[in-house]
């Protein structure tokens, strides 16, 4: 049975359609990444999944329990870490856990053992008597996670869990999530960052309330394989212009001293399979235009490349309609 089956979620605020026919399914051991900019509707989806907002259309089932019909049972399997998670700063680490445990209806005796286990899991053993308010950002976030896990949920909803957190703390946090996934939990993570998204097993790219495309990271990246080139050239501005005008080039972006070119799908497949022919042609076209090519090679596409290509294709479709 799927941990989470959300079908056709729709939420309107007045005339604004904040979430528009969004569906997502999470199996045990999976991390689903809801990826998109601020305002795309990610947080609204999270709130619909946890039942904090009511649906205008669609349905949410958690371990087969319909959230609208059996809210208590459905919610008992869900842990939710909102974007601005409020710990009680004037309570200790242990007292915060006890509080969230009692909210979840866990008796004192069970809680004592579980608190020790959870603090060990997130690496806060020995900090039980420390006031939450004096913890570092990374430690607060780990305590937040421990509080969200206090009733042993099978589904964990994390709304931008590592916003404002450095790469090392982020790595630590994900190591914890990986352990939970290994134990058969499922996770939904919302994030605007591709370097966070890449850790998820399935991604849904969201914009303007809709999921534009969905899939495992590698299957989303596959159509762009061989189509992203890195160009080092002088003068750069002229190279940029020439590439933008080239019929085989779909998109040009500047990264410091380098240009990234995205080739049209047909450009690769009309030539040699690896795009070598297109590279050679492009190289000589640039040279003929007065550009000195210092380096041109195919690089691995990034999720950002995929998202941009998807957004541009969607905009193009909208124009044709």
């Amino acid at each position: 049975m799927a941990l989470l089956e959300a079908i056709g979620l729709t939420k309107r605020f007045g005339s604004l359609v904040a979430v528009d026919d969004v569906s997502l399914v999470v199996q045990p051991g999976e991390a689903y990444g809801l990826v998109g900019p601020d305002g795309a509707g990610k947080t609204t989806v999270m709130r619909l999944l946890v039942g904090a907002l009511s649906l205008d259309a669609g349905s949410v089932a958690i371990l087969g329990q319909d959230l609208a019909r059996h809210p208590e049972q459905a919610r008992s399997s869900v842990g939710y870490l909102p974007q601005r998670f409020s710990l009680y700063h004037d309570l200790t680490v242990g007292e915060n856990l006890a509080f969230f445990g009692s909210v979840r209806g866990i008796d004192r005796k069970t809680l004592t053992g579980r608190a020790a286990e959870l603090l060990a899991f997130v690496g806060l053993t020995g900090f039980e008597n420390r006031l939450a308010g004096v913890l570092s950002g990374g430690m607060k976030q780990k305590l937040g996670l421990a509080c969200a896990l206090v009733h042993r949920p099978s589904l964990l909803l994390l709304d931008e869990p590592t916003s404002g957190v450095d790469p090392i703390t982020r790595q630590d946090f994900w190591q914890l999530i990986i352990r939970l996934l290994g134990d058969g939990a499922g996770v939904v993570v919302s994030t605007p960052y591709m370097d966070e998204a890449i850790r998820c097993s399935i991604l849904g790219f969201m914009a303007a309330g809709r999921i534009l495309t969905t899939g495992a990271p590698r299957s989303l990246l596959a159509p762009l394989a061989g189509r992203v080139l890195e160009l080092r050239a002088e003068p750069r501005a002229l190279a940029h212009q020439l590439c933008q005008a080239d019929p085989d080039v779909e998109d040009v972006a500047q990264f410091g001293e380098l240009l990234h070119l995205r080739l049209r799908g047909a450009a690769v497949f009309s030539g040699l399979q690896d795009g070598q022919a297109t590279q050679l042609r492009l190289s000589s076209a640039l040279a003929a235009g007065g550009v000195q090519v210092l380096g041109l090679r195919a690089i691995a596409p990034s999720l950002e490349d995929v998202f941009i290509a998807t957004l541009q294709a969607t905009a193009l479709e909208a124009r044709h309609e």
Partner: protein
Amino acid sequence: MSELAVQVDRLTKRFGDFTAVDGISFEVRPGEVVGYLGPNGSGKTTTIRMLLGLLRPTAGRAEVLGFDVERQAEAIRPLVGYMSQKFALYDELTMAENLEFYAGIYGVPKGERRGRQQAVMDLVGLNGLGDARAGQMSGGWRQRLALAIALVHRPQLLFLDEPTSGVDPVARRIFWNTIDKLADDGATVFVSTHYMDEAEYCGRLGIMNGGRLLALDTPAALKRDTLPGPTWNLIVDRLIPALDALESLPGVFQVGLRGDHLHAITLAGEHSQHTLQSSLEGMGFSVEVESTDPTLEDVFMALAGDKAPSLD
């Protein structure tokens, strides 16, 4: 005036026993886009505040646009622009009124204001949107207006603090194209961020941790020079057990989950595609190993992670 936009020599700031910035030195040439990548508390903001003349260094010195930050701070401030992640816009005012308001604050002479405002609205691509209320605009548009505001007094040096956090990737690309245009025209840009997505766009990138500048180079050179060895993608059937197995192999520096596969850094000369493949197969995994390009996250973890060479 000095040839350099920023020149920093053994700059240090201590707060009591805490060393926030620890003897950093670097130079920035006019027209460069330089990023500062580091966690909160690594000293990024303290450095910027010293460069703006808002904080007195404990030791060392710094010159910004040829002026000493301790003795000539007043001369620096009119020449710099600042855009923070949490930029303040007046939601009730139109886009044009917001800009007009800040032009006044920055002391743009009345006679020049109209032309100057038009020029920055053109530059950031907000032409024709002057009459829209700021409160009704989405993140990407608000961020362009914030950039226009930071530019309205024609600064020579621009400080950007996580300028594109939370905006969509297309808007982010447009933003950086504008920044590159400014840099091509001679403005110097200094970006602080803790997001790799943003750091990739910088011409040179400094890695900050614990008050120290661990490295400063182009993203390409950092990826080439700072890792302890090659990077790999491993497509494997059971992810979590494979991650544990890989972590316990000698010669493996670090392993992380990348969605549907694993990403590993190994020590130089310790592993090949073949040894990784056969080690994991020997433990009963079905695996496919690919050599891959390092990422900036790899660079950061190699320089500042818990397995990084100790600083002392």
